């Protein structure tokens, strides 16, 4: 058991995951609130109006983080899907499943705020622009993922099918992105890249960073909580959940958890 030495796998065991989430979520939520308050304050009162767009540009402080999260969560979901397909770690699938609605929400929010921003800036709520279209396609990929999961009766088969779909989709996302980019673009160029200094006022950049941090923490908290509920539901028959219901909050984890725990093999055998 080489796997046993890797500490992070400890948390792939459902029971330990539950404890981890119990500890993490209050911090994540608290951090999200603090960052959001600071970010909103900076974006409304500190950041100067844009010299061309006036105040309407301020919606991008929520638009840009939402768009980033929408794309990133899809990739993360695909990574969890691969972990689930290759190592059969069920928790990875539960994480992927929990991320999907949040990712879809973020993508939708990016489209929605983008439309509101487009109305005063471009003079229209919607254009068939490259980025808008590829974001819309991303939303459809999320919807297909969630629909496939609910359409397959057997939970494990549905999970594996959805994982494979997420993987195929993730390989396609860059192809879709670039093909749509060549097709037609009206969207303004990126102001923030990793390789050069941002082309915006420092306070705008600070506000954007704060809001991005808030989005990250919010998404992490929501997805972890959703996965936790899923874990409890799936493990409802097991001893540790019964103990939990009887004794209330448990904060001790099982340090001897193995990869078999993560895959649920022991329990499946025990049950049948």
């Amino acid at each position: 058991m080489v796997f046993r030495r890797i500490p992070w796998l400890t948390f792939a065991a459902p029971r330990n995951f539950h404890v981890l989430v119990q500890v993490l979520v209050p911090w994540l939520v608290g951090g999200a609130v603090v960052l959001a308050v600071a970010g909103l304050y900076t974006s409304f009162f500190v950041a100067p109006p844009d010299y061309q767009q006036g105040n309407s540009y301020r919606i991008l402080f929520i638009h840009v983080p939402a768009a980033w999260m929408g794309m990133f969560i899809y990739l993360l979901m695909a990574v969890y899907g691969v972990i689930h397909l290759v190592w059969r770690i069920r928790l990875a699938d539960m994480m992927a499943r929990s991320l999907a609605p949040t990712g879809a929400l973020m993508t939708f929010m990016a489209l929605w705020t983008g439309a509101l921003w487009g109305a005063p800036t471009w003079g229209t709520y919607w254009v068939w622009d490259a980025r808008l279209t590829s974001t819309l396609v991303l939303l459809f990929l999320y919807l297909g993922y969630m629909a496939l999961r609910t359409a397959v009766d057997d939970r494990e088969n549905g999970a594996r099918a959805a994982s494979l779909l997420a993987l195929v989709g993730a390989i396609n996302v860059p192809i879709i992105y670039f093909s749509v980019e060549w097709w037609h673009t009206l969207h303004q160029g990126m102001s923030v890249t990793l390789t050069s200094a941002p082309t915006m006022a420092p306070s705008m950049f600070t506000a954007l960073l704060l809001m991005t941090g808030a989005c990250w923490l919010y998404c992490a908290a929501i997805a972890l909580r959703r996965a936790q509920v899923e874990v409890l539901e799936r493990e409802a028959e097991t001893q540790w959940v019964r103990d939990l219901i009887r004794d209330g909050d448990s904060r001790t984890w099982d340090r001897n958890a193995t990869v078999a725990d993560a895959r649920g093999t022991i329990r499946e055998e025990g049950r049948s």
Partner: protein
Amino acid sequence: MWRSLWTLVRRDVSLIVMRRQDILTVVAFFIIVTTLFPLAVGPEPEILRALAPGGVWVAAALASLISLDRLFADDWRDGTLEQIVLSHQPLPMVALGKIAAHWLSLGLPLVILSPLLGYSLGLRGFELVVLMGSLALGTPVLSLLGATGAALMLGVRAGGALMALLVLPLYIPVLIIGSGAVSEAMHQAGPYAHLSLLGAMLAIALPLVPLAVAGALRISLD
């Protein structure tokens, strides 16, 4: 291995060709969807000509989509698919064989018919050649991508609409580049960049997608 692949392709093609119904349905669907465009937009030649590359390509993508549900479903229902999976042949190879047969019997008729539909919408000469070429390169990619969806959807109730939701987003790049090639040809620019891109997509999809299809088949037959 090549021999068994060849046998599989021949078996599948003759199964589909024997039951002409399927081919006729798909071809008729292709024609009808293309016919809807002039009826909905109006008969002005200028507008129709501008619409032609996209119209024919959308019709071809939809025809490819509706032909998918027969790809694995019949063999799955009577148990043949399970026997094929249990055989010693590598599963990606089997998937490739079935997709090839599917394209030869249901995709190729669309390619052959496309100049006629393109002509009716106002494309002429070289544009028709480009239309046919882009479809010849593009529809195999559509079949390959769609096969992943078809394999995942085996045994799923009410699959039709869901299949469209899964597969159509994956079709988008092919659709853009394919109809782009024809548009370029219409504007006196060389369509070769677009055609090369389509060829590149085919070259990437041909070895990779069968792996995904094989994985999907294993999941569905589990």
